[in-house]
């Protein structure tokens, strides 16, 4: 039983991977430790977590402001799903790139604030022109034609300049669920990485430590790159593997029981 006699840990640290690399190299000192650690961090957060495994995805519950915006998390890279919770399920809403990004300018065209609702000096208020959709302070403002299109009654757009989500249309609640791609590593270094990533990360460090060294022959670099790509393929196969029960579920979902005729 694994709980009584545990096997080696299924999650390891970045430090473990770097020590594994040093062991492969027969380098029993920390002379290159900082360099290899940084390469390993970049390999996980910029390559493995983002493109090859699902470990880099995260979920956050955001509160939509009265201006129908929600701030993006600091580690946000790209969105996977945006929606709101309904009876324990996620009701996704559509990405609509025609939603107007809210900005506040005065009548001279001078930019005075990033979003509607932000504190603005009282003397400036008379000159302000607001750009927003049909909802202001949570109230529907009529007199405009048309609603933003899409398959859903609500839409969102990512405002990267102000690092926020902008919503349009109607959502039944202000609680927004954002599933997003992250860098995959916590800034305090407490992150653990899955064991299946170790081989790919190790080959990444071994490749990158030589990639910019002009003394290393081109074919040697190519070989290191190929080693890494093989490990990436193995990792992707592992991560995306179809379990037997999933396969059977897929087969049986098209089978129906009916009276024998």
């Amino acid at each position: 039983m694994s709980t009584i006699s545990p096997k080696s840990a299924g999650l390891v640290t970045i430090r473990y991977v770097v020590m594994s690399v040093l062991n492969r190299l027969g380098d029993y000192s920390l002379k290159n430790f900082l360099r290899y650690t940084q390469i390993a961090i970049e390999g996980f957060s910029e390559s493995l977590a983002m493109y090859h495994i699902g470990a880099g995805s995260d979920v956050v519950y955001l509160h939509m402001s009265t201006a129908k915006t929600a701030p993006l998390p600091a580690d946000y890279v790209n969105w996977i799903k945006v929606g709101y919770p309904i009876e324990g399920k996620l009701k996704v809403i559509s990405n609509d790139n025609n939603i107007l990004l809210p900005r506040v300018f005065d009548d001279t065209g001078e930019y005075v604030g990033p979003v509607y609702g932000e504190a603005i000096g009282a003397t400036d208020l008379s000159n302000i022109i607001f750009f927003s959709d049909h909802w202001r302070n949570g109230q529907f403002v009529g007199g405009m034609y048309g609603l933003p299109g899409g398959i859903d009654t609500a839409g969102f757009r990512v405002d990267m300049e102000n690092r926020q989500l902008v919503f349009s249309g109607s959502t039944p609640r202000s609680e927004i669920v954002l599933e997003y791609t992250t860098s995959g590593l916590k800034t305090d270094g407490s992150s653990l990485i899955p064991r299946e990533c170790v081989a790919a990360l190790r080959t990444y460090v071994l490749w990158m430590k030589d990639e910019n060294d002009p003394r290393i022959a081109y074919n040697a670099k190519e070989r290191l790159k190929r080693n890494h790509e093989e490990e990436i393929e193995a990792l992707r196969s592992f991560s995306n593997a179809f379990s037997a029960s999933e396969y059977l579920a897929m087969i049986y979902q098209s089978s129906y029981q009916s009276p024998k005729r």
Partner: protein
Amino acid sequence: MKKINLIESIVSFLASDAAGDSKGVYHPEEIKVHLNNVFNKAVYDSWLNGKRYSDFSQLDAWSKTYEVAIVSQIGTKAHGLLPFAPIQLPNAMGIRQVADNADVSNVFAPMESTADVVFAELEVSTMDDTPVYSMEQNNLSTGAGEASHKLKFDKLPIAPDTLITSVDVLMIVPLEMLDDYDDCVMPSGMEDNIIQQVIALMSKKQESDTSNDGVFNPQN
């Protein structure tokens, strides 16, 4: 073999008829100077050999641990004074390892003196908490008998964590730091090699300049 044995071997050879025209009585201090130089070259060759085969265990027999007190800690930064100038080897291998005196498994990571500006911008500075050190000449106390080099530390634990008050510095010991009656441990066969090199250095006659080109160059 003790250091005095090496010196006496050379002195007795040079005093014998085997020394030929170089026969004479030489002061041991003069021999020590040559011995130190040859020793440093032998250390470098061992390092080079270790680099070639990724096996630095050959340097272990020349290495010794010195306890260095950590002083003037402000925040996570502090410094410590080395007992002597380390042997200058590539990759700062004159200092083999720096570890917490109270916990030798807590090994510090070396860093080039100018690398801080780079690593400070990268995630490794926040995601990894391994203490780091860099080495430079001592600018705090200079003069005869003062420590010539110091270690600068960073990312040291701060209260309420347990502070590190001293570190174990594993250094390659230069021959000049050994007392005459200290054991001078060398890789097998190296003693004879060093003795012969010093003798060759002290008894070698300069080759004559056979070319009448007006330029003094014995190799002509």
